[in-house]
């Protein structure tokens, strides 16, 4: 989406490596979400930030997953000791200022763990 830039777009990691995925909202947004989309599936909620506060991390699959947003703008999703089941597209979304319930998604970061 035009409001969210994600990098890298593609990441290949060997099993056991750590990866960091970046989400950069183009303009300041209070609410920021991370979703995981496995191949052929719908997005699944991972975590939610309101400014720099991580208010909900109930969707993070394991303690190998960690997200932060230290200054309330750019967010990083870190996955430690990657496993093959971590292979997915990781989507960042912001709450659109034009509508109360509209989420604007970035293009995602496709992670492949070999």
């Amino acid at each position, binding site marked *: 989406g035009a409001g969210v830039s994600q990098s890298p777009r593609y990441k290949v990691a060997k099993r056991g490596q750590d990866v960091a995925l970046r989400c950069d909202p183009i303009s300041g947004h209070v609410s920021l*979400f991370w979703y995981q989309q496995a191949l*052929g599936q*719908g*997005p699944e909620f991972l975590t939610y930030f309101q400014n720099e506060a991580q208010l909900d991390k109930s969707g993070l699959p394991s303690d190998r997953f960690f997200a932060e947003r230290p200054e309330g703008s750019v967010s990083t999703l870190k996955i430690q000791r990657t496993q093959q089941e971590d292979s997915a597209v990781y989507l960042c979304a912001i*709450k659109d200022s034009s509508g109360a319930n*509209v*989420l604007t998604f970035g*293009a*995602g970061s496709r992670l492949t763990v070999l």
Partner: protein
Amino acid sequence: QQQVKQSPQSLIVQKGGISIINCAYENTAFDYFPWYQQFPGKGPALLIAIRPDVSEKKEGRFTISFNKSAKQFSLHIMDSQPGDSATYFCAVLPGFGGYNKLIFGAGTRLAVHP
């Protein structure tokens, strides 16, 4: 537990035909029902959405029909075009929590043949 069941998994329609995608949900505490459209390599984008106080909403060629008693809602694409070929996701939003923790269906891959 799967809270949103979407069908069919895939759909082939001839140009000019009607595409119909269905969703069923299990929890009555949802109060917002959007449909998202996703093209390959892109993030999902909001297509159309409905609240449970209306039974139908139309925007151009796209219509949502909502049946609260049956806990079902569907997307109808009239005069389907090849450019509509994409994956469509229904979603639901819990009516509590105060933020947009959308729950998505598994998706329907639509192919519109010329």
